[in-house]
């Protein structure tokens, strides 16, 4: 019985040993050491089920979608549309017609900024963001600011690493859109999405959520969150690279101008003009990553079988363990940037350790087979706000266990040995 079959039974706790057996890369050794992969916030590893689903697709049904009447093309198209429905269901999207596949969440946010923003925003209009955003939810709006002269406002980070919502209503006053991350990829902080959404809607603003860090780790119900746009990315949730999605309320998509132009997204083309296809196809120009959609379908089935409640529980308890173990061993030598209460956060732990630069920390850890990320995590404004140029970040997923945390705790001491004066 594989972990998937086991998970299907009930929302029993994750059997991590079984999950680990589903991920072929974990058998790899690095510098002679067992692989301790603690960089899932950057990209997750893939279970065999996902790799097999893609290989099987390429080996049996591969053909361009929506374009042929022959059997292979029918199977391909059905596989792609089945993926759309399954992924929409996985995130609780009210209507799969609102789910546009993109290459990653970055493209998904750019799609909204360029298409919805281009059509609905003008000079002086306000868009509210937060100080903790990933560049993917900053740069598209900065570009729009350069282009249209919109105003950007920022919800600040509070002292406890949560968003300071004290002045939210004032920030939202007259705003057209509020766009924010559901979980900070640096701090791990979970955003009170529904609270912000209600405030934004009350102020007449639409809501875009960057769900890149939420969907892989926390049960997600877009319908209950009542958001207008919700983006996420496949490679962080056990899926392949090359695919992401933007779910939007279909009425919004219908009213928006197209984003990329080309095959598939059209209804008719003449040399002097064109009309667009129905949503969501209107936003899917050119040959889509259909094999990747098949992979993402397998990924949401895999996660669904584990049970997202179990995934979340596992990560909360692992994060609690890590916070405790790091503090116990390293005390004031380690500064953790993020909420200390595990229930308020995901499993991305950013820290600095003694004055040792994160690059050096990461290099030393690598020698022990431990993969952590060192740098600005594509959130430079937040790092400036934190007063650091870089942090080390360890992040957890379904295949991590306490021994991985122990390896990290231990590895930091090696860095200390090498670099302390």
């Amino acid at each position, binding site marked *: 019985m594989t972990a998937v079959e086991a998970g299907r039974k009930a929302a029993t706790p994750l059997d991590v040993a079984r999950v680990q057996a589903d991920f072929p890369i974990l058998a790899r050794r690095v510098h002679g050491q067992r692989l301790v992969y603690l960089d899932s916030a950057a990209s997750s590893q893939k279970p065999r089920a996902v790799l097999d689903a893609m290989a099987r697709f390429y080996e049996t049904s591969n053909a361009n979608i*929506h374009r042929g009447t022959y059997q292979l093309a*029918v199977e391909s*198209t*059905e596989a792609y549309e089945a993926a759309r429905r399954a992924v929409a269901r996985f995130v609780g999207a009210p209507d799969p017609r609102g789910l546009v596949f993109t290459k990653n969440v970055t493209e998904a946010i750019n799609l909204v900024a360029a298409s919805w923003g281009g059509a609905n925003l003008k000079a002086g209009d306000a868009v509210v963001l937060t100080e903790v955003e990933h560049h993917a939810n900053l740069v598209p709006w900065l570009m729009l600011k350069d282009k249209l002269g919109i105003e950007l406002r920022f919800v600040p980070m509070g002292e406890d690493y949560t968003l300071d919502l004290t002045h939210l209503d004032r920030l939202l006053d007259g705003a057209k859109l509020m766009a924010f991350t559901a979980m900070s990829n640096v701090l791990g902080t979970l955003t009170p999405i529904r609270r912000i959404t209600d405030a934004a809607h009350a102020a007449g603003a639409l809501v875009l959520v960057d769900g890149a860090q939420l969907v892989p780790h926390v049960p997600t119900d877009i319908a209950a969150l009542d958001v207008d746009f919700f983006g996420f990315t496949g490679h962080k949730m056990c899926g392949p690279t090359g695919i992401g999605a933007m779910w939007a309320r279909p009425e919004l998509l219908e009213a928006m101008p197209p984003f990329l132009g080309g095959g598939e997204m059209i209804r008719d083309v003449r040399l002097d003009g064109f009309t667009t296809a*129905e949503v*969501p*196809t209107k936003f899917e120009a050119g040959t889509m990553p259909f094999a990747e959609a098949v992979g993402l379908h397998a990924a949401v089935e895999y996660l669904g079988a584990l049970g997202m409640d179990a995934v979340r529980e596992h990560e909360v308890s692992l994060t609690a363990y890590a916070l405790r173990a790091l503090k116990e061993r390293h005390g004031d030598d380690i500064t953790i940037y993020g909420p200390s209460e595990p229930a308020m956060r995901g499993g991305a732990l950013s820290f600095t350790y003694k004055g040792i630069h994160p690059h050096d920390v990461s290099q030393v850890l690598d020698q022990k087979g431990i993969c952590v990320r060192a740098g600005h995590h594509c959130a430079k404004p937040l790092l400036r706000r934190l007063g650091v140029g870089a942090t080390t970040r360890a992040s957890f997923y379904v295949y991590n266990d306490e021994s991985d945390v122990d390896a990290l705790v231990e590895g930091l001491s090696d860095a200390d040995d090498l670099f302390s004066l």
Partner: protein
Amino acid sequence: MAGLEDLYREIILDHYRSPRNRGELPTPPAQRVEGFNPLCGDEVVLFVDLHDGTVADIKVSGQGCSISQSSGSMMTAAVKGKSVAEARALIRRFKGLMSIHEQALGGEADQLDEDGADGAGADDPDVKLGDLEALQGVVKFPVRIKCATLSWNTLTQALDEAPA
């Protein structure tokens, strides 16, 4: 041909070879409505002459495959002379017949929800399909469902757009 009997029933081929109500009507009094299947290039042009709440006359032109042509032909034969209400009931019934697999290939799910399986008439046994039953085999060939429903969606559009 082996494997295709369900798709290409004799009655379908008959409508394809000898389409009924093919041609155009003067506009006005008739309305002219176009339908496209953007994925394959099929085009249907319907001319619908509504009069006193009935489909007084209807003609179809355009180009398409045997399924879209014969479906259009059968449709015109079925609705001509019927009341608008009867025509709508027939549309719902026909789309109900086609709906099982249509969603599998994406798109049009909206129209299904409005006019299709959920709507009144979708399973109404009082609405007789007659020759149209022959098109049932199309659901086994999901890509072709859009061919079969093209003229029906276009007729819905014509009825919706008709001056009240």
